[in-house]
């Protein structure tokens, strides 16, 4: 196993600015640097919205019993953007929300780093909660992102969200 077989999935082809523009327009993008929550949040400002709900998924220092040192996320960018657009479109049909944006980070992450950010605004509070949770669950189920955890003894393994 050599590192370079994963090079294409550890960084994005676009610039970070392009990724933010895609996220703002279509609702989803991958990013390969630290997620700027405030930039994402500002795109959701809307005077008709009384509710803003956001989720941040951060790298934990443990998973099950094992102590996690760091982990790396890998993504299939073009499919992720297409599937992400479909997820946000579907969320807007399912829930009474005004707008939603999500970004997933790829590359090497440290403990505490934000791996995924989902923000939703709506007139009333429950649709934002419901949509934020549904978008997150659907990202975890359908967005082509993979993760390898590295442990203290330098071993690593591929993880999966569904067993």
């Amino acid at each position: 196993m050599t590192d370079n077989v994963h090079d294409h999935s550890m960084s994005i082809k676009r610039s970070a600015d392009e990724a933010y523009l895609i996220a703002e327009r279509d609702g989803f993008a991958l990013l390969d640097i630290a997620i700027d929550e405030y930039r994402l949040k500002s795109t959701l400002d809307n005077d008709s919205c009384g509710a803003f709900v956001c989720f941040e998924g951060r790298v934990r220092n443990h998973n099950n019993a094992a102590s996690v040192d760091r982990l790396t996320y890998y993504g299939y960018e073009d499919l992720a953007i297409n599937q992400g657009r479909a997820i946000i479109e579907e969320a807007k049909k399912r829930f009474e929300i005004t707008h939603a944006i999500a970004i997933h980070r790829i590359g090497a992450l440290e403990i505490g780093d934000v791996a995924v950010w989902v923000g939703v605004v709506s007139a009333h509070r429950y649709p934002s909660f419901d949509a934020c949770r549904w978008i997150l669950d659907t990202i975890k189920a359908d967005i082509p992102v993979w993760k390898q955890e590295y442990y203290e003894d330098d071993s690593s393994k591929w993880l999966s969200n569904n067993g």
Partner: protein
Amino acid sequence: MSAIDMTTNIESTMNINVMYFASLADEANCQQETVSVQQDTSLTELYEQLSQKHRFSRPQSELRVAVNDYFAKWTDQINDGDSVVFITPVAGG
């Protein structure tokens, strides 16, 4: 004759660009390859052939498949020039 081998009859083959991610990239030991397969090769047959070539550990039943950067059904047809990715269980979030 394996359908992955180049054939002399250019009319009856199609070139498929296959990209690999995660454990499949480890097992194939490459990021992508262009394979020439017989016309009408199905996605299932394509995975079977590549699975033999690279000794993939995952059965097709555990995978999803994407064609040209969209999720596809295993029964979808592929055409010359298509880009195909086999998707192992994802782990985002």
